[in-house]
């Protein structure tokens, strides 16, 4: 009986240490390291006219104070532009420490290193920076007006303008029987993992090596950047990702200033140095997302078929643009959703503002695009007097239309082609799950508390598993343990578990015998990172391919040892044996011994691989030309393009007309990410995604004042939801395999968050008749809007 691990609700390998408090997060090591603290700008936009550190020098325990003037070589240059693009005509990135000018509250101006964090902060408080304030550009309205400039050499604050078009949208809209013009907006928010950022570096003078631990989503990215900036050989820089307390996108940015400054200081001082971000720092120096304004012209016929769609939108990229224009490209290319478009034109303008830099946060431009498309669908339904689910049904791409080519370029530079899906199937499931047909009776039934009920729906498609590649190394040790390494990182997704499930199936071993390491450049130096719902697709397939190569080698060696034909062999429970004859077998541990011809034995079992152990062909080398010692293999997975997951959410809400409070009575999620490796973990991803979606719709926003101060930069004022604020989603799965990868899987990490604002806006509008054109919405705002409607 063969055990199948793929598809099982396997308990997580990670949890044994995490529930004991034995995880190894960034700040759980380096207790004797020197501590760094940063002096950060209190101004959104200012010239630095002087920095006086003299008072800080009296602080007992101070080790050093550094400003831009102290930075050598490439460390004094602007940090890398991570993703250049031809349309990004005015890229600007920050300096590791501000050079003469600050462009957002929180920008690092000086670094203090001291014996501990308390002392470092004492010294930082004594550093006096003279600023000459400049006009601050805060928010998209100010950026678009262009009266004041963030960067004086960037006219109109415009970083980039891009257009993509399918067909001829303007002509299609002009010729359409019906046309609507609509405006939609989404506010700024942030990932806000429970663990902030952090860096811990150690220079080993004997070996000339730098070891960096950083709470990142891309250890190989940090390694390449630090080696380049500090002008060290790549092989002299090791980057290890410890347990990471959540990322959600913001930790994919690299190198953050601290990620180059802390290693530099460690080498300079020849001491371990550590910096751990505090919560205020996270609000004002870790990247944000989501702020966009959109204008839509949609043309459609009397049946609700979309004939042409023109979208112009404005993206707030914050003070700098290290991540290029990936976010607005994602909005532009994912906005079409699951619908059949023949004529679609999208133009976006990416604008600088004097606020924290914007890079992807879970969902990454898709919540905005989904909001625009889904609200547009609701408006079309309303204009024609047809049901919201019906107008969607009439426009869905049919299962027989895949692959569906949009003739556009996706965020990875590859063609935007949906690979597979069953969107009508999803719609049927979500209508059933939420009780769509029975809702009108529910609405009509008198409610005891006077609250008004509404139902909403939103659909999305998510490009997942973007390239360029991931790789993996699988090694069966002579003790029978299967050691797996892949370079991408983990922030709680459960990669140690799901990759072990995949390898266990491929090699015919127990999942408990598979040990997975992620994000350690010493173990696997070629990788990209964890973002864009790509880890399962990319590294999942890479570990499968590497494990298949190991299996083939194991079968070949075992066939020799058992004097059997390779095709007659099977691997079960860690034993290679002749099919139908379990007694004629050899354990993988012994195959591993035989795979490595030995001069010197190290154990009784290993004697079998020594030179006098058994007769061998005198004309064949112990390791032939086309072979390598060891039962191990390395392989890579690199897709031609992304694979597209999809889903639909529906919600029933109750709105209290006296307070504007929204309660989510039911929340239904139907999700298709192909075959599920571990349903328990996929459901966990959906729970967390929906939670962040609800937070973004009803609670969380980053509130800047006109001067560019982030006035809610704490957990007391930024309303991250507690247990009491969130629904328990009901979940149904559909599993449409991808034809693009060996496992047929699609990504699942971000999906939960994408349609939530659109879905809740639809439900709230349905409940109280207020136009929901912008999110998030707070109870006082909704109450005011309801009053306006009543007053007329």
């Amino acid at each position: 009986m063969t055990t199948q691990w793929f598809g099982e609700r396997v308990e997580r390998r990670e949890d044994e240490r995490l529930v004991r408090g034995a995880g190894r997060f960034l700040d759980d090591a380096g207790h004797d390291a020197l501590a760094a603290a940063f002096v950060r700008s209190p101004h959104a936009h200012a010239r630095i006219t002087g920095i006086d550190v003299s008072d800080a020098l009296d602080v007992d325990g101070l080790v050093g104070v550094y400003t831009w003037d102290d930075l050598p070589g490439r460390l004094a240059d602007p940090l890398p532009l991570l993703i250049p693009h031809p349309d990004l005509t005015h890229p600007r990135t920050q300096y590791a420490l501000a050079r003469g000018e600050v462009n957002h509250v929180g920008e690092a101006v000086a670094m203090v290193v001291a014996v501990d964090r308390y002392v470092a902060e004492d010294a930082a408080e004594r550093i006096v920076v003279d600023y000459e304030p400049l006009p601050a550009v805060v928010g998209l309205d100010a950026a678009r007006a262009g009266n004041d400039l963030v960067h004086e050499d960037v006219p109109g604050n415009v970083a980039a303008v891009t257009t993509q078009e399918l067909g001829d949208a303007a002509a299609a809209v002009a010729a359409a029987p019906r046309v609507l013009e609509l405006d939609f907006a989404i506010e700024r928010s942030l990932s806000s993992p429970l663990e902030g950022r952090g860096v811990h570096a150690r220079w080993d003078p004997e070996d000339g090596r730098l070891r960096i631990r950083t709470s990142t989503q891309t250890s190989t990215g940090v390694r390449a950047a630090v080696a380049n900036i500090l002008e060290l050989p790549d092989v002299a820089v090791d980057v290890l990702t410890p347990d990471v307390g959540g990322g959600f996108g913001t930790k994919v940015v690299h190198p953050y200033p601290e990620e180059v400054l802390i290693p530099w200081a460690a080498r300079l001082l020849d001491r371990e140095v550590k910096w751990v971000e505090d919560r205020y720092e996270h609000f004002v120096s870790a990247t944000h997302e989501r702020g966009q304004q959109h204008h839509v012209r949609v043309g459609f016929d009397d049946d609700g078929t979309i004939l042409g769609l023109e979208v112009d939108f404005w993206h707030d990229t914050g003070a700098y643009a290290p991540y290029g224009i990936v976010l607005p490209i994602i909005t532009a290319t994912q906005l079409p959703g699951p619908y059949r478009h023949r004529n679609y034109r999208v133009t976006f303008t990416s604008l600088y503002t004097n606020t924290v830099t914007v890079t992807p946060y879970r969902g990454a431009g898709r919540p905005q695009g989904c909001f625009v498309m889904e609200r547009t669908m609701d408006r079309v339904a309303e204009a024609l007097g047809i049901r919201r689910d019906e107008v969607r049904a009439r426009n869905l791409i049919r299962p027989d239309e895949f692959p569906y080519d949009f003739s556009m370029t996706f965020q990875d530079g590859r063609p935007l082609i949906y690979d597979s899906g069953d969107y009508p199937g999803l719609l049927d499931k979500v209508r059933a799950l939420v009780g769509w047909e029975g809702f009108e009776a529910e609405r009509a039934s008198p409610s005891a508390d006077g609250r008004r009920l509404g139902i909403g729906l939103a659909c999305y498609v998510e490009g997942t598993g973007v390239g360029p590649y991931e790789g993996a190394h699988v090694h069966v040790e002579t003790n029978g343990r299967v050691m797996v390494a892949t370079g991408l990182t983990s922030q709680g997704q459960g990669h140690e578990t799901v990759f072990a499930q995949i390898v266990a199936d491929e090699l015919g071993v127990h999942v408990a015998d598979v040990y997975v390491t992620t994000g350690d450049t010493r173990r696997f130096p070629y990788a990209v990172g964890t973002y864009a719902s790509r880890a399962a697709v990319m590294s999942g397939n890479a570990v499968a391919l590497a494990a298949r190569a190991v299996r083939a080698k194991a079968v070949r060696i075992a066939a020799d040892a058992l004097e059997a034909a390779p095709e007659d062999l099977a691997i079960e429970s860690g034993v290679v044996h002749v099919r139908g004859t379990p007694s004629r077998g050899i354990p993988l541990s012994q195959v591993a011994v035989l795979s490595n011809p030995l001069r010197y034995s190290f154990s009784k079992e290993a004697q079998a691989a020594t030179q006098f152990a058994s007769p061998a062909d005198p004309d064949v080398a112990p390791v032939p030309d086309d072979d390598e010692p060891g039962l191990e293999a390395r392989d890579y997975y690199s897709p031609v393009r992304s694979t597209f997951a999809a889903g639909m959410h529906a919600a029933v809400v109750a709105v209290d007309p006296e307070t504007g409070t929204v309660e989510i009575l039911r929340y239904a999620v139907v999700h298709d990410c192909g075959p599920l490796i571990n349903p328990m973990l996929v459901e966990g991803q959906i729970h967390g995604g929906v939670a962040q979606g609800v937070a973004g719709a009803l609670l969380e926003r980053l509130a800047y004042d006109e001067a560019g101060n982030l006035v809610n930069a704490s957990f007391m004022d930024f309303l991250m939801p507690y247990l009491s604020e969130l629904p328990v989603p009901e979940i149904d799965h559909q599993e449409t395999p991808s034809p693009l990868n060996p496992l047929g899987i699609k990504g699942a990490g971000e999906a939960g968050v994408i349609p939530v604002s659109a879905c809740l806006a639809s439900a709230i509008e349905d409940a109280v008749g207020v136009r929901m054109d912008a999110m998030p919405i707070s109870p006082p705002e909704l109450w005011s809007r309801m009053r306006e409607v009543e007053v007329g």
Partner: protein
Amino acid sequence: MSSEETHEVVVTVNGSVRSVRVPARRLLSDVLRHDLRLTGTHVGCEHGVCGACTVLLDGQPVRSCLTFAVMVGGAEVTTVEGLAGPDGELGPVQQAFRERHGLQCGFCTPGFLLLTTDLLARDPDPGDDDIREALGGNLCRCTGYVNIVRSVRRAAELAGEP
């Protein structure tokens, strides 16, 4: 260390008597994590809102990031490292969170484990409202709390088994 005045604090942590010399301003969370090397207690916000740093102080949940170490002299502190059984086996609360996938990144988890331990000590069979009340002050960014609540229910089952 710098030349700040220090104070001796003797405190019982997970059943062991520990003695540290600390400045008056040193937080209990820092003493646990960096002086006693009990790093299971995590610090998520340093302003008492997220609850990742929750420990039991004489049996009551407190935010160790809002507690000065000098305040806990003579007290008994329980951290996540104190929740396993005498032979190192997972305690029922720890076991339940693993079984029900009550954690993802694991950073907030120690705080929730201690809140659950406190809840079950007071009420071996809590209802949903009791669970919401007991756990409603800690933040988790990964799970949407769905499986945390399921884990608490499972912990009550496991703790009630003979």
